[in-house]
């Protein structure tokens, strides 16, 4: 018995030694940097605010900083909360961000970490290559987040029907409501007078029927950048399964590759002045206000439909509460402000004669999940167009599936955009690996 115990102990130590030999992959790229780099925590210390020892930490992306400071200041003033609010701002620099993420991951797994997360999805088109939650669709099954169902049910002021039901379902599982999407998008073109409007709904297989060459080329290009939008749903994270066979996946990729080739040939053979410029688009990562600002009253909004004939949306920004937080009620109150009609529409809020802004980074990136905010946003400023509002709302009604942008979107994006030839068998295997890890 004594011998057996000593063997078990030896093996445990051996395992520990070999584990010590395994480098932390997050650190390998930055061996020269200090291993004690601390996560930057910025305190929202407005001079008049009376704070207590209790601190609520919100993890945000760098671009949201000023808006979130304004919104949390509004929260403190309007609620009379004395809780100190700190921001854990993820860096703009990927090397630094990698170290921050590694530290936050360890804290979360130790049962600590930030109380609230307000973050962008893992958008393949963004400059940053890394995200704290590289795949939110998978993370909502990982017991990291607080189930908001109880908070929603106990709050009589909160009406869930104000929000796009399909889009908010992206943050739900059979067991709970773990993430609340804030903004979303889907690929859509705004077509002006100079283009011929397609006679049928545009999807992967009807693009080649578009009579206008420039529009056909533009839609062809769009498919490789927004692969997740050309199909309804590719993965079921609950059962950890890919919903399409390898053959179907290969056929889709080949089709996108053909369209890519058509787009490239068109660009090479067509003189620039012959290309129609009266075209703009709304898609993940683009400001809806910027996109609409170029539109004329007569523009027609033509979305890229998925192969089922509906629209697939991508969640761009989301919020989620740490399961181990002491401040779930306070976090939910802040989420409610982020979901407020005026905040989501980018108008900001005035309270006690002070204006709290909420424009570009938080509110205007893509489409607000609050349906009322969509109408409010469209009726103000540059976007004031009843025709476009109606068209956008019609498109929103056609959304039948929504998911977070994630590492699988990034993998497919990198293959389709940066590689001349795609090894579909390898890509399919990689997707399968990412689902199961």
């Amino acid at each position: 018995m004594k011998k057996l115990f000593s063997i078990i102990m030896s093996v445990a130590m051996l395992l520990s030694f070999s584990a010590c030999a395994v480098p932390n992959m997050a650190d390998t790229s930055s061996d020269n940097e200090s291993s004690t780099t601390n996560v930057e925590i910025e305190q929202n210390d407005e001079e008049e605010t009376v704070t207590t020892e209790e601190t609520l930490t919100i993890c945000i992306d760098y671009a949201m900083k000023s808006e979130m400071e304004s919104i949390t200041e509004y929260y403190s003033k309007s609620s009379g909360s004395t809780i100190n609010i700190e921001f854990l701002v993820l860096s703009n620099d990927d090397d630094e961000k990698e170290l921050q993420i590694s530290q936050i991951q360890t804290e979360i797994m130790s049962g600590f970490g930030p109380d609230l997360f307000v973050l962008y999805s893992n958008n393949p088109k963004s400059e940053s290559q890394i995200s704290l939650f590289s795949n939110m669709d998978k993370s909502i099954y990982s017991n990291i987040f607080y189930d908001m169902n109880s908070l929603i049910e106990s709050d009589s002021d909160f009406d869930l029907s104000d929000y796009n039901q399909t889009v908010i379902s992206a943050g739900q599982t059979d067991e709970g409501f773990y993430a609340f999407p804030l903004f979303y998008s889907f690929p859509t073109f705004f077509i002006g007078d100079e283009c011929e409007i397609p006679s049928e709904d545009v999807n992967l297989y009807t693009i080649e029927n578009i009579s206008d060459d420039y529009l056909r080329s533009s839609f062809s290009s769009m498919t490789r950048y927004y692969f997740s939008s050309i199909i309804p749903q590719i993965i079921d994270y609950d059962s950890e399964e890919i919903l399409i066979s390898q053959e179907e996946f290969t056929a889709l990729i080949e089709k996108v590759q053909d369209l890519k080739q058509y787009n490239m040939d068109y660009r090479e053979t067509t003189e620039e002045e012959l290309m129609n410029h009266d075209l703009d688009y709304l898609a993940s990562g683009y400001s809806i206000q910027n996109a609409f600002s170029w539109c004329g009253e007569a523009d027609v909004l033509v979305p890229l439909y998925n192969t089922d004939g509906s629209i697939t949306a991508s969640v761009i920004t989301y919020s989620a509460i740490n399961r181990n937080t002491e401040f779930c009620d306070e976090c939910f109150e802040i989420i409610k402000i982020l979901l407020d009609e005026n905040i989501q529409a980018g108008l900001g809020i005035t309270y006690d004669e002070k204006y709290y802004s909420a424009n570009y980074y938080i509110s205007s990136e893509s489409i607000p999940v609050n349906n009322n905010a969509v109408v409010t946003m469209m009726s103000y400023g540059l976007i004031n167009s009843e025709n476009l509002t109606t068209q956008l709302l019609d498109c929103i009604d056609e959304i039948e599936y929504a998911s977070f942008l994630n590492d699988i979107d990034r993998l497919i994006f990198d293959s389709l955009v940066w590689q001349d030839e795609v090894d579909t068998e390898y890509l399919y295997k990689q997707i399968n690996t990412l689902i199961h890890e």
Partner: protein
Amino acid sequence: MKKFNGYLLVAPLFLGCLIFYIIPFFMVIGYSFTVGYGKSATFAGLENYSDLLSNDIFLLAFGNTMRFLAIALPLIIVISYVIAILLKESASKNQFFKSIFLLPYIMPVAGVVLIVELVFASNGMINETLYTLGLPIKDWLYSDSSFWVVVAVYIWKNTGYSTIILISGLVTIPQEHYDAASIDGASHLQKFFYVTNPQMWSTVFLAVVFSLINAFKCFREIFLIGGTHPHDSIYMLQHFINNTFENMNYFKLSTASVFLFLVILGVFLVFYIFVSRRERS
């Protein structure tokens, strides 16, 4: 008081082991039976284990790790043993070779990977030679061949270390035993099986233990060659554990670590029982 002096002397080491190895080890076992983190963790029974056993990617990683250990470990021990015997025979003449064999072991990982890239990359030395000879070229690092490349790198890098351990065992065997065997008319092969081998089991066991540690260290090279998601044939348990950490699935990670522990314990026990029986006989 005097009888406690020994315990006092080992106390710092024991405390270090307790805090940094033994307690975390039991915590990992505990995590493998839970879901959730910190205060929100709940007991899940064997759910994590059943989930993991139905996880294709875990089974792939587990299978690859076992295949690697099953092939590379015996291979490195046999090769090191042969080299150790050859070097011992002419130890005085071959001091230089002993140093040469150890060179790959002390080479930095980046250097090893650079050599692998120079030799096995799609435009590396092997493919260029094959192309010059008019033979078909192959993607050595991103095909089934990558497994054998990794085995070759592991053996090339670690043979010297195992050889030194085995030589240290060989030189402890008294020359008189060989002389007596010679007088009895024993051949070289008989001397090996009846004089050398029976006295080498504990050293071989030590060499196996260190080779096992080095086999897990080899993950650094595999990672630098193939990244976080290498070719299927070299996707090891460490890849699975590391990538699961990135996805913050601590209970899956802990369960996989317990499996890894059980595997090492199994290998250890098999060798230990084998060596104990041999030594007793």
